[in-house]
C-alpha cells in the first residue's frame, strides 16, 4: 500500500469508530459526565469545603485535573479494549481488517485513535462540567501542556486497552483489568490528593505508578505546580507508549490471542 492508501485505511477505521461513538452517545459520552458531576458535587463541593487548600489552591480546583484525567483514562482504555474484543470475539468483524493489506501498525493506530478521540471528547465535557462547579474560575496555567498530556495519556491507555482487547479470551478478562488494575492505579495515582500528603513509604510506592506521572503533568498544565519535574512525566509517558506499542505490534503481527 502506498502512503495515500494507508491514509485511506486509517481514515476508514477512525471514521467507523467515531460514527459508532456518536451513534451510541448515551453509552459512550454520558456515563463519565454524570459520574464526574457526582464527584465534583461530593468531593468538591460537600467534602472539599472542609478539606481546605492543597498545593496552594482550594480543593475543588485541585481535584479538577485529576477527575478530567480519570475520564480520559477510563474512556480511552474501555473504548479500545471493548471494541477490539467485541469485533474479535462476538462478531469476528476484525477479519475484515485482517484479510485486507492493512499492516498491523496501522491497525493499532486506527483503534488507538478511536480511543483517543473518545478520551479527549469525554475529558473536554468533564472540564466543561468542572467549570460549572468552580463557578467559571477554572485555573489554566498552560493550555499546551494540558492538551499534550491529555492526548498522550489517552494514547497510553488506548494502547493498554488494546493489549487487553487483543489478548482477552473472555468478557471477564475485559472487566477484570479495569476493576483490579486500572481503578486502583488511577485512584492511587494522585487524582484526589497530593503525593506530599502521603507518608514517606506510600510516596515511594506512588512513584512506581505510571498514572501518577500522567496526572502530575496534567495538573501542572492547570495549576502550574506539580509533585515532580514535568520532564520526568514526559519521559515516563513516551517510554510507556513505546513499550505498549511494541507489545501490541507483536501480538497482532504474530496473531497471538487473535489468530489460531
Amino acid at each position, binding site marked *: 500500500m502506498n502512503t495515500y492508501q494507508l491514509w485511506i485505511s486509517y481514515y476508514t477505521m477512525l471514521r467507523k469508530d467515531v460514527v459508532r461513538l456518536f451513534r451510541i452517545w448515551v453509552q459512550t459520552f454520558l456515563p463519565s459526565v454524570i459520574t464526574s458531576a457526582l464527584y465534583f458535587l461530593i468531593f468538591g463541593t460537600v467534602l472539599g469545603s472542609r478539606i481546605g487548600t492543597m498545593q496552594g489552591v482550594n480543593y475543588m480546583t485541585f481535584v479538577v485535573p485529576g477527575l478530567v484525567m480519570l475520564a480520559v483514562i477510563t474512556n480511552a482504555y474501555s473504548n479500545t479494549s471493548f471494541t477490539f474484543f467485541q469485533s474479535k470475539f462476538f462478531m469476528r468483524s476484525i477479519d475484515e481488517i485482517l*484479510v485486507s493489506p492493512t499492516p498491523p501498525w496501522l491497525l493499532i493506530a486506527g483503534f488507538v485513535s478511536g480511543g483517543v478521540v473518545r478520551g479527549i471528547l469525554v475529558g473536554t465535557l468533564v472540564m466543561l462540567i468542572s467549570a460549572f462547579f468552580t463557578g467559571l474560575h477554572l485555573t489554566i496555567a498552560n493550555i499546551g501542556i494540558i492538551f499534550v498530556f491529555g492526548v498522550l495519556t489517552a494514547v497510553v491507555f488506548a494502547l493498554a486497552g488494546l493489549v487487553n482487547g487483543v489478548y482477552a479470551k473472555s468478557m471477564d478478562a475485559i472487566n477484570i483489568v479495569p476493576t483490579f488494575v486500572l481503578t486502583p492505579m488511577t485512584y492511587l495515582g494522585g487524582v484526589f490528593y497530593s503525593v506530599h500528603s502521603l507518608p514517606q513509604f506510600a510516596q515511594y510506592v506512588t512513584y512506581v505508578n505510571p498514572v501518577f506521572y500522567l496526572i502530575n503533568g496534567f495538573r501542572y498544565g492547570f495549576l502550574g505546580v506539580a509533585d515532580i519535574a514535568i520532564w520526568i512525566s514526559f519521559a515516563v509517558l513516551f517510554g510507556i507508549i513505546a513499550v505498549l506499542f511494541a507489545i501490541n505490534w507483536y501480538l497482532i503481527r504474530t496473531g497471538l490471542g487473535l489468530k489460531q
Partner: protein
Amino acid sequence: MANALSIKDLKKEYANGTVALKGVSLDIPEGDFFALLGPNGAGKTTIIGITAGLVNKSSGTVSVFGSDINTDTEQAKTNIGLVGQEVNFNPFEKPLDIVVNQAGYYGIPRSIAIPRAKQILTDLGLAEKMDKTAMSLSGGMKRRLMIARALVNEPKFLILDEPTAGVDVELRRGMWEYLTGLSKKGLTILLTTHYLEEAEQLCKHVAIINKGEIVEQGAMEDVLKRNESSTNTDSKFRGGRLEEVFIKLTSEK
C-alpha cells in the same frame, strides 16, 4: 502464467494438538473455478484461513499470484476476496457502510468505493436493503452481503467458503449464475461446498481433502473418470457422479 494459488507442503497443527493439515500441496491456475471438497473437519477452512491471513501455518509455503503470504503479505492480500463460512460483519451497521468500509481497508477512497459498492449490492439484489441495518437482512441476504463485501476491492482471486450454506434453492441458483458470470470475466474462484452436484457443474478443477491430506485432485472430468468405476454401490441411495466419488474417497471403510 502464474498460478492464482500455489500451496507447497502446507502443515498445520493447532495449539490443542489437532493436526489439521499434513503436508498439502495444491495449485489453482489463474481463471479457474476450483472446488475444494471434503467432509467436515477435513482441513478446507484451515487452508482458506491460512491463505487469507486468518490462521498461522505451522510450515510450508502459500503464494497468491506469485506473492508469498508471509514475505509479500500486502501484495498477496490485495489480490484476495474472502467470503467466510460464518457471517462476520457488525449487524448494527448498514450494508452500504460495511462494503464501503471494506474498500477503505484496501486503500480505496470513498469517492470510488461508494458507487462501486452500490453497483455490487444492486447486482446482488440488495439495493433496497443497503441503507437498513444488516441485522434486518435474511440469511440469504447476509450471504450475498458477504459476497458483495469480498468483491468491492475487485480481487483477482475470490475464495468462497460454503457461501450457500442455508440459502434456499432459488437464491443459490441466482448466486451461482452471478459467480459464473464473474468467472467468465477472468476471476479465479476457489469454492468449498457440500452441494456436490453444483460443484460438479460449476468447477473446472477439483481437489478432495480428507483428514488433512489431498486424496484426489485434477480436472473435474478426469477425477470423475478415474474414480467412477469403483464407486461405492452398497448404499441404498445414489447421488450424482461427484458425490459417489467423494463418498468413495472419504469413506471410513
